[in-house]
């Protein structure tokens, strides 16, 4: 556990030092711009648009970090041979994978927390005060983090078997498809038997990012039932565990030439 923590902290430090958190500056500028533009629109529309925009920005910035850091997380250590130093110490390959993924998740949590704080600052500035309903977006932020954890798992798996460029394409494709699984299922119900079976199968195997998206309801102050939150959380965690296990299985057998 100590070694996993060492790798996680090192990964987080690397992200910070390599200026990954600079995306926060862009986010801040975006939110300030949105606040200025939306300030002139009527109050109700203003709030919904601001929450939509803020949460979407949190999601997109997080997604970009999860994909583009995730795909190079292991590959970079192999390519630069810094991994030789790590694995020559009493560190199991599984511990390395777990440490790297935890480090990236930690980066994403810190990044998302800062963006969320910035978002609430703008919301408070626009509204003058925050009421109980204004905390609904926090639930959406939680689901964004679940999505990002899943993306980290996918990016890591692909990075263990292919180049960073291909890994990026595969991960982003899966993210897009995963957001359209509901439509795929609906299409399957209207199709012939063979296609229906195929689409049903795919929708069961592929990660269901659509189910983990809560931005639109949150913008209207709607909260998800606790049971649904629990189900979705368990789904995301289990799916990530499966992805990490597959990555570890592949990485345990990989020759580092």
């Amino acid at each position: 556990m100590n070694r996993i923590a060492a790798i996680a902290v090192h990964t987080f430090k690397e992200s910070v030092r390599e200026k990954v958190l600079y995306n926060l500056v862009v986010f801040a500028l975006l939110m300030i711009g949105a606040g200025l533009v939306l300030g002139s629109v009527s109050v109700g529309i203003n709030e919904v648009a601001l929450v939509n925009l803020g949460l979407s920005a949190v999601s997109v910035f997080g997604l970009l970090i999860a994909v583009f850091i995730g795909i190079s997380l292991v590959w970079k250590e192999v390519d630069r041979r810094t991994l030789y130093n790590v694995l020559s110490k009493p560190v199991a390959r599984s511990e390395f994978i777990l440490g790297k993924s935890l480090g990236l998740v930690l980066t994403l949590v810190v990044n998302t927390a800062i963006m969320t704080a910035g978002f609430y600052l703008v919301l408070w500035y626009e509204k003058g005060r925050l009421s109980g309903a204004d905390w609904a977006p926090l639930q959406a932020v939680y689901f964004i983090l679940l999505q990002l954890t899943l993306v980290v798992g996918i990016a890591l798996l692909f990075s263990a078997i292919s180049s960073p460029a291909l890994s990026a394409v595969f991960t982003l494709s899966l993210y897009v498809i995963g957001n359209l699984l509901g439509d795929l299922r609906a299409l399957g119900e209207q199709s012939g038997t063979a296609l229906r079976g195929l689409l049903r199968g795919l929708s069961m195997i592929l990660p269901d990012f659509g189910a983990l998206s809560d931005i639109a309801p949150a913008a209207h102050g709607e909260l998800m039932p606790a049971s649904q939150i629990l189900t979705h959380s368990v789904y995301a965690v289990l799916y990530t565990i499966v992805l990490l296990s597959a990555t570890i299985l592949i990485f345990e057998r990989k020759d580092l030439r």
Partner: protein
Amino acid sequence: MWAVEITELTKDYRLGFWSRERKRALDHLSLTVERGEVFGLLGPNGAGKTTLLKLLLRLIFPTAGTASILGRPLTDVRAHARIGYLPENPYFYDHLTAAEFLNYAGWLCGLDTAARRDRSRKLLEQVGLAASAGVPLRRFSKGMVQRLGIAQALVNDPEVIFLDEPMSGLDPLGRRQVRDLVLDLRRNGKTIFFSTHILPDAEALCDRVAVLNAGRLQDLGSLQEILRASVDSIELVLHDPPPQALEALARFNPGVTRTGSHVRLEFSANVDADAVLDAARGAGARVVSLSPVKLYSLEDYFLSRVRGATPGSEPSGSKEAERG
């Protein structure tokens, strides 16, 4: 218990992702390294030295055979708590300073915060990097990176230390420091297993050596046993000798090289040196030096093995052609 025990270790590399063709990098290698000895792994580039070290460090996996370190099989990660490793041409994290990197290495080895701080400070002093402890590694020269690599290999005070080309990238002073460090480690009872293709390093440090060529064990023993006297030669340097001096020396069948006003004549090791000197002086040549030449290039050694003759006994014509 051996420090390292290797039995029939074999490694094949696939030549491409889709290809079924394989290249054998290590071929049924067996050897043992005793505790407390400095063991050199010698061989030209591509001999399989790095492959063997990577197999021992479980960076790659064997096609066949087994090995153990301090009695534990390679698959047992616990053995790594007692070993250190310097990779060939090491590369470390640009975003860390030297002290931070050693702290990370110590953390991976399970050292607590105080022990990491203390060990980092001592090691940086030992490898001459104390003044650069807070400098980011992106600003380090190749020699500094090499020294830091040695420091990180020692962070857990290991019993067995694997060094892959430890002198690479070091200036003469740095090489001397590493030599002294290795000898110091041996005095403290550590086992050192290092690879090199530079014979003077091995001669200065090793108790025993293994010579690899094309993945196979060519020789195993002390360096003196391996590089027998027959591979030595004797070099005579004359200052602007008259033609009759060279004619007089031709009967000793030397290799001849002209460098400015000097002429170097290389004789086989068993030549009668007195007779050579008498012949040179008798013909009016001015002798600059007469000295034994040891075989310092392992590549030369392998060439001699392949040709079935030692370099010193090659015909002079062929030597001159080589020197071109």
